[in-house]
């Protein structure tokens, strides 16, 4: 009997879920839009996403990455919407938030739909049902039921963890509670029912900071530059004021940031019986990056340490191996020729306050469109021991001179011997 009851209640839960989904869909379909980026040369859509109306004057919320190609190359693209009734029209960009991947766009038509989504006042409780709406793979608008699983841990760029499948094309669609109020915006997926949403608060902030008049195309990059600069300042303040703990790696003491948003992983070859050397690695990184356009990501931080030691190789062979290990370091973020210039480096042999002697290489490249923002790559290899050494390495993407120099100083100074 108990089983039967359980089965019944399960059935009714599913029934309720289906009903809500149906209701939601029929109720709000007119406030859902497909957003298309039209390539001017061919006149065809080059990418698609979703968007939803949030007031009666035709303002839509979507992801920045949905409209990024247009923002970056306004002379090559235009943005268009496709409404539920099949009508098509132009969109203009009111404001963007590259850090949180949001954009506000304005429908350019006289017949603006009066249906819109209300924004929820608060986030739901963990485990409650929420519904993601959007247009995956250009298949038409659909509803995906799922579960709210709180704000994602270990993230500097805040995301809601949504258990349910979000697919390409659904980006920018709303995620609503059973009452039809928006709690987040579809943004990314990690596969296997793990989806990520931009939290509601970010939408509120963007709305507060926006004027009613659309941005001019000239203001796009300026806006991005300001937001990146502000974001890196905020990030490095947190990194600097965070608690720098010391942890042991082989015979060295390396700095570890006790910040919840840096995810760390480790590895070693100690199980390999044939290896003539011991290698112990530790890597920490920010889980997310800021998407700027198809070929450019920024806002990432990576820190890596590798301890190498070998009694069997002998000094000269060990140092040959050490040379190979520090060769060929590359950028931590994706960027193209039009975004950044080539790295330039400064190298020297440096001793820090703990008497750790390091061959240090500091490389830098600048962003072509965002003045005074740089990507940094540092790699150092110690020179104190004959057959032991520590490689310390970090990459920072999209930082100011001040942040870069302060971080480098702090990082280099924190390495010590046990």
């Amino acid at each position: 009997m108990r089983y039967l009851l359980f089965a019944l209640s399960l059935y009714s839960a599913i029934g309720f879920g289906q009903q809500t989904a149906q209701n939601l869909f029929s109720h709000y379909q007119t406030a859902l839009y497909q957003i298309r980026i039209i390539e001017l040369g061919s006149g065809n859509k080059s990418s698609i996403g979703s968007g939803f109306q949030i007031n009666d004057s035709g303002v839509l919320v979507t992801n920045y990455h949905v409209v990024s190609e247009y923002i970056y190359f306004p002379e090559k693209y235009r943005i268009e919407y496709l409404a539920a009734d099949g009508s098509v029209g132009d969109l203009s960009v009111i404001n963007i938030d590259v850090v949180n991947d949001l954009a506000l766009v304005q429908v350019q038509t006289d017949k603006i739909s009066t249906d819109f989504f209300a924004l929820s006042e608060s986030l739901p409780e963990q485990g409650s049902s929420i519904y993601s709406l959007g247009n995956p793979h250009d298949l038409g608008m659909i509803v995906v039921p799922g579960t709210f699983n709180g704000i994602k841990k270990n993230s500097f760029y805040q995301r809601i963890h949504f258990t349910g499948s979000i697919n390409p094309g659904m980006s920018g669609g709303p995620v609503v509670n059973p009452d039809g109020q928006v709690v987040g915006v579809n943004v990314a997926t990690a596969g296997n029912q793990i989806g990520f949403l931009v939290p509601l608060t970010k939408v509120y902030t963007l709305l507060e900071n926006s004027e009613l008049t659309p941005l001019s195309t000239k203001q796009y990059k300026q806006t991005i530059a300001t937001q990146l600069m502000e974001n890196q300042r905020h990030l490095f303040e947190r990194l600097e004021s965070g608690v720098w703990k010391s942890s042991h790696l082989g015979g060295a003491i390396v700095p570890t940031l006790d910040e919840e948003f840096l995810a760390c992983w480790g590895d070693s070859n100690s199980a390999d019986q044939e290896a003539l050397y011991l290698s112990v690695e530790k890597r920490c990184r920010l889980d997310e990056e800021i998407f700027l356009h198809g070929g450019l990501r920024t806002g990432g931080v990576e820190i890596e340490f590798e301890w190498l030691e070998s009694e069997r190789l002998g000094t000269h062979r060990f140092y040959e191996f050490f040379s190979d290990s520090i060769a060929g370091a590359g950028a931590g973020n994706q960027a193209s020729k039009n975004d950044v210039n080539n790295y330039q480096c400064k190298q020297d042999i440096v001793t820090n306050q703990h008497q750790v002697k390091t061959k240090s290489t500091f490389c830098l490249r600048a962003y072509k469109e965002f003045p005074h923002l740089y990507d940094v790559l540092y790699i150092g290899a110690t020179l104190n021991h004959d057959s032991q050494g520590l490689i310390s390495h970090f990459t920072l993407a999209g930082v100011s001179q001040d942040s870069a120099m302060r971080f480098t100083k702090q990082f280099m100074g924190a390495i010590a011997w046990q």
Partner: protein
Amino acid sequence: MAIVLELLSRKDQTLKYFKFNKPEILVGRDHHCDLRLEDPYISAEHIRIRQDSVDNTIYFEDCQTINGTFVNKRCLASGKLEGDDILKIGRTRLKVVNTNQPVSAALPLSQLEESLSWLSNSGIAILLTLGYLVLSMISGYLNSIADYSIFDMLPKEMGQMAILSAWPVAFAVMGKVFNKESRVVSQFSILWLTLFIIYGLYLVEKLLSFNFNAPVLFLWLELVVYTFILFGFVWLSLFIAFHQNNRRRNIVSIMMTLAIVVPIVSIGMLGNGDFSANPEYDSTMLPPAYQLRPASDVASFVENSGTLFTELDKQIEVENLRAKRKDEKAH
């Protein structure tokens, strides 16, 4: 006076030399001819060559042959012959030598030739060969991070040396063909000596780049030094293989050096302006004992790195200006 003829190869090299102390000679395939040529296209009595006793002028007369006589490619029945004229009868080519003209002066014996004679010592050559084998084994050992087995490496290193041997062998063959002397031992000695010098320079370069981080100027200097070594190597190989005058040898050496260096440089330079996501930096690490200069401290290193920011800003400014000008021109 005498009639002097040279039998020429197809490439105008002298094969044989004939001198007749007679005022008139008969050339043909018949046994009684003064100059008998075994060429089936030549008639039994082909031409008569006669020297005027007064002014030494040489005349010839075709003996109404089937294939005729060609003087400097023109078919003639008779006529006067000058020095350096080329007679073609049948398939054979003869050059008339002007005995009035003096031969070129003798090449001076080179001092260098004497001082390089020790290179042809087989003992030294064998020592150098073994020395190079040992050196390449040691260098292979230092560059390995897995267990090193001499018996695995020996065939590999010897194979590489066999490939390198193509150079001295090629010069020895050419020397044998053109000079009747291969001097292969000297060629090998020169090759191993050059490789020793290059390896030595490689070690110096490593030491310098570890300490001074290989600035661009350093790369150019390196290129110049290696080009000179290559030039010297080619020059000596030629010197040993051929008897040439210095001017010709210099020109050939420069051409061969450029033929090797130019492709290497252009491949290196072609990619230089291209965008790369990886920085170019010096990764040479040597044991602490090789550090030649004092270390700096963190604060001054970071401060020095500050100049990179202004340099890059300037670079972008220049690029933007250039793009702007281009735009204006396009309008």
